[in-house]
């Protein structure tokens, strides 16, 4: 760290932008300036350098204290970033960097958990309502130019099951609770949550699947959750229930899901995530009955995503300056 004129340390922050992610996710000087204005106490103590698609990465990482980014040559960090103390990842599901054996000694890794929550809450309500109202089936009928009334129950009479009650799952739980639904949940350690009527640990998956009318997948992708929902789990679900995946595509066995949607075991599904992404043009999922596809855009607010990301980053910079523990720390062993 360099000594500033006032004798207090200046933290060098390197922002690494990936142009493939598009403008919604760009952390540009304008958005940094706006964040500095919101956090003027921190602004005086940082200097910010920018790299795009790694064009300046090798030069700027050499004396950076903090790295903010999503895709970068992470394996090179121990060698190239001697001053690095903290890496902030600008998304929530960070499995693309697993295993985390590349993290240099003494470096803390944080992610964007919580940043999606307000938008996820809205999408959670929307998805619950679409499943309850049989919207996937109605959209499929329209494709076939069929007009058939589809009567359905009232959402407040239904039960939501949230697999993975973290920040996103908690936001979905809160949305479902506000709609008057009964809410079941699963999370590691089965710690209670204000919006969840009954919480289990991972051993409660079968019970949750058997009682839920709408199942939301909100887990991180880890070796334990890869393929978590296969033919057996789909068969455990209530006949006519619906599935919403805002976790990662690889959490669900796609072929088993297609079979369950085609047979009527599930009344509908809303998928926001796929394996791989983008979903190939020739994927059979596009034409699978009773399925609505949102191309991984459910939870990222077009205007607020980067400002909320930077509010989290600046709060952590404030903590770093004060020598306090950071928020949203990724546990390298768990991978989230």
């Amino acid at each position, binding site marked *: 760290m360099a000594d500033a004129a006032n004798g207090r340390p200046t933290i060098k922050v390197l922002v690494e932008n990936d142009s493939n992610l598009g403008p919604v996710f760009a952390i540009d000087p304008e958005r940094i300036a706006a964040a500095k204005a919101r956090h003027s106490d921190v602004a005086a103590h940082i200097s910010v350098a920018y790299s795009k698609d790694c064009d300046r990465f090798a030069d700027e990482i050499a004396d950076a204290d903090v790295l903010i980014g999503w895709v970068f040559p992470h394996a090179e960090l121990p060698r190239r970033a001697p001053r690095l103390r903290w890496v902030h990842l600008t998304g929530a599901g960070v499995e693309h960097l697993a295993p985390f054996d590349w993290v240099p000694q003494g470096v803390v890794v944080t992610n964007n958990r919580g940043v999606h929550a307000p938008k996820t809450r809205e999408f959670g309500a929307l998805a619950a309502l679409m499943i309850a109202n049989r919207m996937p089936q109605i959209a499929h009928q329209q494709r076939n130019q069929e*007009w058939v009334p589809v009567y359905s129950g*009232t959402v407040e009479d239904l039960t939501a099951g949230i697999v993975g009650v973290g920040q996103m799952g908690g936001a979905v739980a809160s949305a479902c609770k506000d709609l008057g639904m009964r809410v079941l949940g699963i999370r590691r350690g089965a710690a209670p949550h204000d919006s969840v009527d009954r919480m289990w640990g991972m051993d409660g998956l079968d019970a949750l699947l058997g009682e839920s009318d709408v199942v939301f997948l909100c887990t991180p992708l880890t070796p334990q959750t890869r393929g978590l929902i296969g033919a057996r789990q789909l068969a455990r679900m209530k006949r006519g229930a619906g599935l919403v995946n805002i976790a990662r595509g690889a959490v669900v066995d796609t072929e088993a899901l297609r079979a369950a949607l085609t047979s009527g075991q599930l009344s509908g599904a809303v998928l926001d995530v796929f394996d791989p992404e983008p979903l190939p043009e020739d994927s059979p999922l596009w034409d699978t009955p009773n399925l609505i596809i949102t191309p991984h855009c459910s939870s990222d607010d*077009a205007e607020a995503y980067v400002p909320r990301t930077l509010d989290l980053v600046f709060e952590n910079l404030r903590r770093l300056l004060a020598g306090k523990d950071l928020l949203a720390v990724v546990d390298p062993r768990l991978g989230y």
Partner: protein
Amino acid sequence: MKQSLLRVHVENDSAIGPLFAVTADMLAAAEERHPSVKGRWTPTFGSDCAGFEQNIAEADALFGWRFPKERIAAIAPKLSWIQLTGAGVDHLLPLYWLPPHIDLANAKGAHKPKIGEALLMAILMLNNYIPALVHHQRRHEWHQLFATGIAGKTLLVVGLGEAGGAAARMAKRFGMTVIATARRKTADPTADAVYPPARLRDLLPQADIVLVTVPLTHETRGLIGAREISLMKQGAGLINLARHGIVDDAALVAALEAQRLSGCVYDLESPDDRPVDPRMWTCRNLILLPHSLSNDPARFMANVLDIFFRNLENRLEGRPLENLVNSGLGY
């Protein structure tokens, strides 16, 4: 002196489907919630107008949806109350056939809470570009559309009645501003501001989402045409819950194809009853609903029966009926 039993003829219409038929068992179950009428009335049953003339000749009340309205005055000398099993009465308009001594009541309010949920879904679908995403899905196109949160956006309810009010309440819970037009009120707890129908063109440019839920009358036919759509914000969304003839379908399709509007959720009544513009099935960013989302059949019929029994109590006690249709306004 013992009062004679009030005779109610229950007329079912098999075209609406068995979920909406009123049976003796359903009446008996609902009567348990209204014990004061027990032993004071008696029903007869008919369907699809078979034997209607005999049944209605002795009836004091008619409980149903479709019936030979032009003949009512001639064949129903004792009739003084018609209780409808639905809310929209346009199939009975104009009401010139209705003798002045017969009260006509509808089932306004029976769609709650289902209608509020369904309209909240439509509002959130539009805010999250679901009509566009479904259109892209039909074409196998991966095209991310990132939305901003709904809070702070403006909903315009064209025709603030039961359905519009239910939608407005939901929209307020999600932080929206709600403005509305209404014919019979100047303020409402569900809306931030209520204006007379003549102000529609001033209000259309203010809304992110426009919900059309006016009844079909001679005043509302053609209410939303090319001119009105052109006054909406670029990229706004439209929900059409109204009967055919209120929104100009050709103008709507043109606005969607030109991406003047970002999406539309359109409740389509039976295409058997009227021709559908074939372009609507495949129109860009248009989602068609098969006229069923207002109804949770179980709850809907329980609500309809409660309205019937409350009015039966009102009749037996000599009180005014609820849900009376204003024969001048036609709703």
